[in-house]
């Protein structure tokens, strides 16, 4: 044991201990940039200088490589030591003015700005040699070394050539105090999170592919195995809002509840890992855009609360803003039909040109370009900031964001092992990491792990953080919540009011749907439209009333409801269209056919084609000569086959009327 004095305090340590270690032992902190407990002392940064008095002779010396001696007196902040240390820090800061740990250290010594001009402000290597020593002493590879001398000195591999060993080792990386290791020629920095990011990307792209595959492939045959509605069913907002709207537990939406539970565990993984729209939006756009005010992030919460309020009133009209529906609708209603149309044009009923048929059914083209608009807007906004939609607008995002504030696992940074302050900041696709303290809003964090991927050390952590994450810049205030509730309630009330209700007599819904309940459950995803084999289902715009926007209508003139099909009910995630067996569906009443005898040309094609036994028969009409089709309203289910096949130009001579609608006479 050796006894020495440090700052007047007697310290006993083992022989061979350095002054630095001895001081740390008694809690006296000496700053240093080039020493590490794993590695041999090197004495390059000269920041750890102290004043050492031995046998009456005082010298300023580094403490990291100075073994203690009996009776030595050490002063860690004598004027001589402090002045020297301050100059060393100033010199290093002038070399690397933008290295955060240096800035912080400099601040401690009252250095606000480097004293000397810098011509390479991007320089971040302080030549501490930690990486080189780690390569030697920890990795036993000796791949990197300090090359050249004086001002040309740098860390590099031999001849700056990439080394295959470097790519696999990475042991030096956590030792680098500034992150400069990433720029060493020949070194390939792979943060510990690199694999995680890869995994996420694989999952994301895989799910996106699955999503597109399902949209493409879900037909009447495919529905049972992997239906298109898989994603919708896991949609936590859909689950929540549709159940709220219908005030019922919807069995089909139980996966959505699973997502909610997962969110409470892991945070916004839905957005970061699963959401197909999110995946697309993650592919491009700038991570940072300082021109967009952060406050804008509250908009999504505003929308969410409006949603909830409306749902409470039984309206799901706003569900067309759900990201899954935004994505599915154009795929199902525009792109898919367009492709089909190109490959094999839909068989047109005899006697009708496409144009004529379209004219016969106002506002209803086969391909619905309007459905693309929301998606296009979302995609364009993404050019201004990556995940613009997810950050500022997405109500689903707001919902999981809200839940994530309570999630068990959250992101945080262990600042002690942070190597390069702020490297993670620009990596965040949500731009939610604060440079000041490296914290992030758990509501904004998508658990995408991109920050982990760039973190050169293990400093970025994702772990249990039970404390709810409130108190961030863009948390919604109580007032705003209230305001949005009012808007939601008011809006829903307005939509529901008779004023905007449609009086359109031919407003047919998919089989089994009940108009009133339907709108409080339909989430406007358009998947029924996609699966309908006869192209009978189409999304409404305004013709069926504002509240009906982008809800499905059955338009027999374009396509009749196939008697042998119950696909729409199978894919409807919220069971706005009930999941009926074929038997049940054959009995489900869509409407009732009504014949316009003035138009009827008595071809009786309708009678011939009617799939429902006894619904349409030939018979006589009082006051008219010859056989006319006669509808039996009790048997007719309103499948519209008659209307579809009717060869009469323009409006058919036989039309299906919605239940309760008054036939025109």
């Amino acid at each position, binding site marked *: 044991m050796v006894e020495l004095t440090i700052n007047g305090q007697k310290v006993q340590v083992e022989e061979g201990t350095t002054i630095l270690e001895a001081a740390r032992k008694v809690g006296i902190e000496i700053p240093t940039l080039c020493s590490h407990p794993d590695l041999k*002392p090197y*004495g*390059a*940064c*000269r*920041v750890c*200088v102290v004043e050492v008095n031995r046998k009456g002779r005082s010298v*300023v010396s*580094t403490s990291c*490589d*100075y*073994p203690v001696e009996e009776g030595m007196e050490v002063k860690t902040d004598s004027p*001589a030591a402090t*002045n*020297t*240390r301050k*100059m*060393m820090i100033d*010199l*290093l800061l*002038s*070399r690397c003015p933008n290295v955060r740990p240096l800035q912080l250290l400099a601040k401690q010594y009252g250095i606000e700005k480097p*004293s*000397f*001009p810098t011509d390479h402000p991007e320089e971040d290597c*302080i*030549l501490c*040699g930690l990486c080189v020593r780690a390569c030697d002493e920890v990795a036993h590879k000796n791949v990197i*070394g*300090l090359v*050249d*001398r*004086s*001002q*040309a*000195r740098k860390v590099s591999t031999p001849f700056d050539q990439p080394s295959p060993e470097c790519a696999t080792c990475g042991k030096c990386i956590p030792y680098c105090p500034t992150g400069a290791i990433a720029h060493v020629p020949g070194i390939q920095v792979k943060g510990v999170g690199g694999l995680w990011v890869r995994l996420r990307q694989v999952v994301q792209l895989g799910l996106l592919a699955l999503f597109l595959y399902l949209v493409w492939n879900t037909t009447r045959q495919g529905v049972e195995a992997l239906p298109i509605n898989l994603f919708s069913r896991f949609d936590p907002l859909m689950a929540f809002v549709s159940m709220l709207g219908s005030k019922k537990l919807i069995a089909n939406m139980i996966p959505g509840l699973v997502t909610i539970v997962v969110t409470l565990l892991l945070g916004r993984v839905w957005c970061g890992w699963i959401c197909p729209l999110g995946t697309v939006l993650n592919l491009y756009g700038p991570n940072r855009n300082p021109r967009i005010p952060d406050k804008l992030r509250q908009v999504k919460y505003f929308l969410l609360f409006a949603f909830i309020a409306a749902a409470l009133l039984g309206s799901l009209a706003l569900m067309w803003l759900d990201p899954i529906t935004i994505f599915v609708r154009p795929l199902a209603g525009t792109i898919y039909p367009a492709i089909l149309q190109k490959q094999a044009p839909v068989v047109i009923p005899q006697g009708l040109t496409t144009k004529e048929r379209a004219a016969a059914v106002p506002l209803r083209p086969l391909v619905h370009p309007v459905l693309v608009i929301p998606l296009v807007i979302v995609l364009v906004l993404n050019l201004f900031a990556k995940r613009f939609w997810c950050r500022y607008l997405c109500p689903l995002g707001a919902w999981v964001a809200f839940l994530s504030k309570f999630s068990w696992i959250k992101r945080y940074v262990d600042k002690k092992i942070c190597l390069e302050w702020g490297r993670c900041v620009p990596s965040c696709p949500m731009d939610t990491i604060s440079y000041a303290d490296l914290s992030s809003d758990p509501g904004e964090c998508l658990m995408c792990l991109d920050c982990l991927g760039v973190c050169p050390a293990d400093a970025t952590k994702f772990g249990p953080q039970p404390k709810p994450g409130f108190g961030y810049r863009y948390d919604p205030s109580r007032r705003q919540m209230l305001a949005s509730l009012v808007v939601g309630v008011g809006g829903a009330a307005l939509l529901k009011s008779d004023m905007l209700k449609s009086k359109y007599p031919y407003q047919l819904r998919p089989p089994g749907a009940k108009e009133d309940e339907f709108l409080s459950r339909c989430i406007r995803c358009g998947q029924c439209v996609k699966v309908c084999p006869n192209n009978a289902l189409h999304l409404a715009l305004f013709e069926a009333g504002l509240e009906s926007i982008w809800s499905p209508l059955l338009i027999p003139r374009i396509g009749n409801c196939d008697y042998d099909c119950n696909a729409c009910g199978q894919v409807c995630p919220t069971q706005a269209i009930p999941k009926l067996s074929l038997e049940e569906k054959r009995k489900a009443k869509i409407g009732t056919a009504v014949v316009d005898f003035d138009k009827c040309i008595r071809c009786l094609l309708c009678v011939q084609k009617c799939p429902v036994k006894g619904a349409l028969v030939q018979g006589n009409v009082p006051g008219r000569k010859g056989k006319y089709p006669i509808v039996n309203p009790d048997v007719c289910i309103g499948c519209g086959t008659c209307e579809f096949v009717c060869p009469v130009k323009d409006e058919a001579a036989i039309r299906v009327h919605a239940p309760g609608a008054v036939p025109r006479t």
Partner: protein
Amino acid sequence: MPRLTSRAEFEEWRQSVLASWEPSKPCITVCGGTGCRALGAKEVTAALGRELKKQGLQDKVDLKMTGCHGFCERGPLVVVYPQQIFYQGVTAEDVPDIVSETLVKGNPVERKLYVDPVTGQPVVHEPDVPFYREQKRVLMKYNGLIIPTKIEDYIAIGGYQALCKALFEMTPEQVIEEIKRSGLRGRGGAGFPTGRKWEECRRADGDVKYVICNADEGDPGAYQDRSLVEGNPHSILEGIIIGAYAVGAHEGFIYIRHEYPLAVENITRAIEQAEAYGLLGKNILGSGFDFTFKVHRGAGAFVCGESSALMRSIEGYAGEPRAKRIHATEKGLWDRPTVLNNVKTWASVPYIINNGADWFAQMGTATSKGTMVFSLVGKVNNTGLVEVPMGATLRHLVFDIGGGISSGKKCKAVQTGGPSGGCIPERLLDLPVDYEALTEAGSIMGSGGLIVMDEDTCMVDVARYFLHFTMEESCGKCTACREGSRRMYEILERIVHGKGQEGDVERLQEIGEAMIAGSLCALGRMAPNPVLSTIRYFRDEYEAHIRDKRCPAAVCKDLITFSVIAENCTGCGVCLRNCPQGAITGEKKQVHHIDPNKCIRCGICREVCRFNAIKVE
């Protein structure tokens, strides 16, 4: 020649060598130092050989190309023995006269004699030349006498007798005691007592120990170590073998720059010869003492002269210094006890053993004993290598030996110790040169460089020059030296370009002090010396640059203007014709004019003007 296996055999051999060595036999020596070689010494030697043959004298006269004689200013040098007639500036054309006049008739060739600038009289004999007369040559004594690559020459002048004495008459402890008593201190600069260093190493634990000779000598303008290795390699080798015997080392190295090919060649030859004669290797002269010695060539980095960097370099790593918490004498090369000494330190050893510690200690001052070899360069008449006892004054060196200032102007300062040293102003020239006095004056002994400066020298520019050297030569390992020297250099650059700011001097001192306190090795600790010493003695010059944007010595180009003094100008047009920029205009026989916007301040006009009509401000 078979290996010598006993002292008796050595003695026998020595006698046979002496028998064939006739001091009275005419001998003509040509300086073969690098300086004289550059000036044509090889051609002179060849011409002499031919001429001797032509006159049939080849057997009657010895012709030797020796090591450096020291008076490099006047090379190529030729000395004719036994009279010691001294010729300077000899060319091949002079050879027939020298042979026919001096060797045949014994008369000096007047035109090649040295003329004493003080008396105006020619000096015939080498010892009477003031440059040599005023010196006390010990280490350099035989440089001009022997063929460096001929071991017999060294034997003839008493070589390897000290080794015999040490091996057969003295214990290692006695050798160390003798060295300690002599007061020999390291000639590499720091002046550590050599005897103590050896003693520490001798006492250190371990069977494997090393001795190293530091012949890196990287200071610009210093070449005394190199000249010794080139001119008398056996004296160094002998000193090292004695040292190895004293400390108990069986292996040794000489670390020498690859850029010094002649030195490398000569020491390599010396080692081969010594091995052949059994003076190196197993069981030296049958004494039972083994010692092998190798040459390690350095790649030429100033910092590799620093002891710990040098050892790293020998170990095969990049030459970077380490903290010396434990002396190299305990843990040096490959962590074994090691003695590292400078060339001159080692070369001193045989003389001390031969002549005794008292003889050595009677030379020099109270704390610094023996002689020191300086390289005297700069604005001095007689540049060259000079050896004087410690404690000689700078004035003696500059004026009595150096012959005064070459430009005829006043001496302004003397820089000692090379780029790590400081500038000592004219008023302190009476300072007796020893380790302590120089340190006291803000400089160092260093390797013995002496750069003489006259009134035309800008001290700020000098400081900038040296700092540039140390900045470039910094290994870059520690912040203090790498970044500190760079920042000091930047500030000095600014000042000499007229962009100095108030507070720059203080800033320089601040960085300098932090470098002294915070640097890992002596390179960084001493790098601020030129700046701090010039600030200490010539602060007004710094202030003139910074405040008045004026360079008092008219050196810093951005701060000076050239103009024509109308009264003196004859309109001869020489300046006009020589100006590379066409900046001078004027009719014949009319006063000329310099356009300051075109002038690049090269100073050619001033040099060519015969009427002193160009003025610099």
